[in-house]
């Protein structure tokens, strides 16, 4: 039953992702993508990775989606413009071809690789363990991540701030 549920969730997730990629309305795309992110986090939950699941929702739904939505709203000229003009046929075809090729290769690899039979009683990592691991083995990486986040935040602010550009161009 769990597998069936999982497959269902997977299908929903994939559908919403695919639809999001196809839609013209960016806002809808984003909202659908949020759905698919939540779907992925459900997968995490099922895999016993509570922490990651919640973190995923917190980061993607709470933060990334907000940034994306802001970006969408800040970069549109009019409502009509938001419907992105249909892309050229050739690019779509080539994109699908490329993605299809990758998919073929991946699926080939996944399906033809002999997997360990039987479900191993996988580890259940509680938050404390993760914390210990993060602060112990991966302390350096954690620091680097912290640095990256700080720099990214500041960089984002600097890049997106209007001070420099407005002097040069001014509003149209």
């Amino acid at each position, binding site marked *: 039953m769990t597998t069936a549920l*999982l*497959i269902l969730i*997977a299908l929903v997730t*994939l559908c919403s*992702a695919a639809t*999001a*990629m196809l839609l013209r309305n*960016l806002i809808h*795309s*984003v909202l659908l*993508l949020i759905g698919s992110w939540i779907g*992925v986090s459900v*997968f995490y939950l099922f*895999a016993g*990775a509570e*922490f*990651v699941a919640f*973190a*995923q929702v917190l*980061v*993607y739904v709470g933060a*990334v989606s907000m*940034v*994306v939505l802001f*970006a969408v709203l*800040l*970069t549109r000229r009019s409502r009509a413009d938001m419907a*992105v003009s249909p*892309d050229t046929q050739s*690019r*779509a075809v080539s*994109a*699908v071809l*490329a993605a*299809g090729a990758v998919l073929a290769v*991946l*699926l080939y690899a*996944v*399906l033809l690789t002999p997997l*360990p039979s039987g*479900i*191993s009683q*996988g*580890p259940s*990592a509680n938050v404390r*363990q*993760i914390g210990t*691991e*993060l602060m112990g083995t*991966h302390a350096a*990486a954690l620091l680097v991540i912290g640095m990256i986040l700080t*720099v*990214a*935040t500041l960089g*984002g*602010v600097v*890049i*997106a701030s*209007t001070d420099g550009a407005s002097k040069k161009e001014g509003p*149209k």
Partner: protein
Amino acid sequence: MIHHPLELCLVFSSLLFCIGLAGALSRSNSILVLLGIELMLNAANLNFVAFWRYGPSPAPATGIVFVAFSVAVAAAEAAVGLALVISIYRRQRSIRLQEAVRLKG
């Protein structure tokens, strides 16, 4: 056909990845391209978790830790990427990726 949760996860993630890839390749809106890339990242994260949980030699918490890092990096990427998008938009009043071919402002 699918008789193992790992396989399920892997197929799911492959599909997700390819959807993201197809989106990133086909759409001209740079925000959507970024979102496609986010999807691909998610697919990769899913693989981490899947291998951590169902993989042959499960390590204590490495998979989760890596996902945590990956999520953090994804957030950073989104922030910087979208800031760039805004900046590009401000320069050429468009966020179509085909038009963003010049390095010089």
